């Protein structure tokens, strides 16, 4: 089979880092080629080079036999390369058809030919065989999964030969993932080549023909997916054998730390939960089932409609995150970059933010020595990789950013910690460190509420699980009762 894309000795350096180090890659026409590597391995830099968004320092890109030393976004599009980034490039106020044909001027006289546009767009959308995806609908009214389909339709409309997907399943529910996989297969049958990037290794076996591992900007290996095991892949990625190890505590006690009684609102029907000292309680269910929404109620980040919260048996009046923090609750929000870390501030400023008032004197002056000591302590305790505490959080890798958000609450000695997708989008080694940390906190008597879409993780680390479906509590499982089937049944509301 011929190669549609070849990359030879691509080098790209940024101040202080070599993002791509003589990286080479061959992608065959019509295959689905997976690209894996830890955060910071250079995947994004590679995609950006192929998409023409950045200029490599040296090396060549060969597309359909023609050699290029650099591509521009326009040239890349013209050649038939389409990229679907994690952050969609859509105009939410415009219709699906308008988005698909953006910049293509389907006009009738002075006006845009809406009829033709809708018709052509609908033809593309119909290939996906999903219900209720209308070309005339406004993009902002669509769920995330459908927005992604619009992105795919956009690349098809531009007759793309190579489609690069960056973590396409991250925002999707299991069922939506299956739809995506079906569409990828159909694209392949049409001879369209896919480069597929994902942190979820299990998926690769369903969708990818071959997989290339990269580490620290270097090419490590390319293998037929069926010939390589997940553990081998992980070993290639981290450069050493590494298994997920959730550890096993026996730290849960019968002492109730936090209790909600008929707490509801924010789109969640009232239900109660009890969190014990030293326990890790899982909130399971599909994306959008109300897990995050319920956590927000506990943390005071959303207005509750009914119910009460008790901490150590005493009623706590939590109306704002500020009240929750005062009561010893901490929350690591779902979207790290949007709500978790203050990216433009440095590590020190992030970590001490919740305790700033406490380490200030009466006149409001912050005790800078205490501030520095606490920061350094947390940086060491969590092994945050950084040259100094004054580093902007934006410059850290995803895993280290998440550690900074966690450090913020550890510095505040939280009794209850709510972790909303704490391992999303971070690499294997950082995930392991977070699991270790959860175990450590639980054994210190912390109560932890954990939300995760990663079933393996949720089963591995929690002691008990509450499962939600469409804003309702549908099931409760003790660790001994855990099976994937049971959890899925509750999660699908059956």
């Amino acid at each position, binding site marked *: 089979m011929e190669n549609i894309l070849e990359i030879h000795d691509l080098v790209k350096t940024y101040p202080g880092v070599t993002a791509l180090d003589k990286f080479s890659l061959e992608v065959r026409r019509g295959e689905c080629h997976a690209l894996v590597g830890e955060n910071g391995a250079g995947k994004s830099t590679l995609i950006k080079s192929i998409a023409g968004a950045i200029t490599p320092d040296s090396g060549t890109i060969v597309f359909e036999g023609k050699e290029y030393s650099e591509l521009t976004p326009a040239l890349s599009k013209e050649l038939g390369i389409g990229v679907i980034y994690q952050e969609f490039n859509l105009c939410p106020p415009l219709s699906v058809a308008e988005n698909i044909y953006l910049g293509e001027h389907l006009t009738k006289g002075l006006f845009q030919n809406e009829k033709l546009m809708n018709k052509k767009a609908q033809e593309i959308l119909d290939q996906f065989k999903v219900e209720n995806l209308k070309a005339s609908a406004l993009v902002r009214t669509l769920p995330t999964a459908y927005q992604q389909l619009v992105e795919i339709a956009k690349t098809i409309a531009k007759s793309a030969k190579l489609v690069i997907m960056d973590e396409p399943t991250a925002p999707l529910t299991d069922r939506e993932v299956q739809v995506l996989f079906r569409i990828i297969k159909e694209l392949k049958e049409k001879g369209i080549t896919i480069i597929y990037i994902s942190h979820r290794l299990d998926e690769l076996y369903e969708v990818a023909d071959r997989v290339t591992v990269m580490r620290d900007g270097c090419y490590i290996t390319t293998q037929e997916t069926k010939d390589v095991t997940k553990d081998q892949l992980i070993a290639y990625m981290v450069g050493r054998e590494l298994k997920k190890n959730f550890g096993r505590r026996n730290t849960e006690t019968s002492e109730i730390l936090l209790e909600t009684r008929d707490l509801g609102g924010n789109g969640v029907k009232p239900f109660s939960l009890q969190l014990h000292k030293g326990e890790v309680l899982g909130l399971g269910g599909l994306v959008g089932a109300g897990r995050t929404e319920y956590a927000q109620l506990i943390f005071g980040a959303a207005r509750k409609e009914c119910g009460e919260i008790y901490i150590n048996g005493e009623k706590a009046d939590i109306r704002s995150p*500020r009240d929750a923090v005062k009561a010893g609750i901490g929350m690591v*929000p779902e979207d790290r970059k949007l709500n978790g870390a203050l990216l*433009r501030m440095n590590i020190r400023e992030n970590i001490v933010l919740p305790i700033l008032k406490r380490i*200030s004197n009466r006149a409001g002056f912050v005790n800078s020595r205490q501030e520095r000591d606490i920061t350094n302590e947390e940086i060491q305790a969590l092994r945050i990789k950084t040259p100094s505490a004054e580093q902007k959080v934006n410059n850290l890798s995803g895993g280290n950013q998440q550690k900074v958000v966690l450090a913020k609450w550890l510095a505040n000695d939280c009794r209850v910690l709510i972790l909303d997708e704490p391992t999303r989008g971070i690499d294997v080694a950082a995930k392991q460190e977070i699991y270790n940390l959860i175990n450590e906190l639980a054994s210190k008597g912390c109560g932890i509420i954990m939300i995760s879409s990663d079933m393996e993780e949720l089963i591995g680390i929690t002691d008990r699980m509450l499962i939600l479906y469409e804003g309702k509590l549908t099931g409760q499982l003790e660790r001994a009762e855990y099976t994937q089937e049971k959890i899925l049944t509750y999660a699908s509301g059956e």
Partner: protein
Amino acid sequence: MPPANKKKEVLYMKKAVDIIKEYTIFIILIALAIVFAVKNPAFLRTSNILTILRQSCIMGILGMGEMSLIVVGGLNLSMGACVAMSSVLIAILSVHMELPWPVVILLTVLLNIAVGFLTGVIINKTKIVPMIGTMALSTIISGAAYLMCGGLPISGIPDSIKVFYQGSIGFLPVPIILAAVIIIIMGIMFKYTYFGRYIFATGSNREAARLSGINADSVFIAAYTICGAMCGIAGLLMAGRVGSGNPTSGSTLDMDVLSALVIGGVSFLGGEGKVTKAVGGILLITMLTNGLTLAGVNEYVQMVITGSVFLLAVVLDSIQHNSLNLFGIHFKKKA
């Protein structure tokens, strides 16, 4: 060990470059002063330097108010109107009602604090864009100032008020002392207090700040209240400078202050800014006007130049935050 030494040297070099980059504004300030001094030696006379400083006081005080707003993620375009309204109020209280000066000042500052607080509450509650909201408020406040004085300036401001702009203690003009004290207090507040950090955190990422247990709404409103207080004090200086309560005074202040802050590196994205550099920007704008006048440049040409400097500063600010391709030169995004 030579390699280690070399490494150290490189490190020092890098640090030196960083420091120069950080305080470019002061290098420009000195360079500009040299150019003006060559054009007209009178520029460097002590009396002229004191004049520049005196002229920059009103902007300096307003600048501190506006800076806390821009850093927190807000903006106020009604400061000029507030200053004008304050000068009219001072005239009414001191000339018509003949109240003693401490009472006049207290009432004026209190009214401005109230206006600032209200502005903050309105913008915070309704979530309107601060620029548009305060533009509307500016018109309202201006109208109120005209109504208060019937459209005509009220002259005869007593010396007890004038002294705040025109007086001196020893050789130092009173307004310079006043502005210096305020700038130092604000500088300390931003850098060393938790409240200052809250302002930066809220402007940097409001939701993340809120989820860290900060009452972001209060911080936002407090910043507007501080800005109100600054308008009141600036109004006092304005009344002392003009010698009358004039509803048209201070009409260009908003733009001048904004351009000075942007030149001084206060980012419109919020969460970023340094008092020292902001002061540099304010001095630069005042010096530019003063120097160009001394060099005999036409007033209208001056407007073109000042506007261009503002534009340039905004472009540079944008380059710092986005990578930009300008005339074929590729500017990298700031790390």
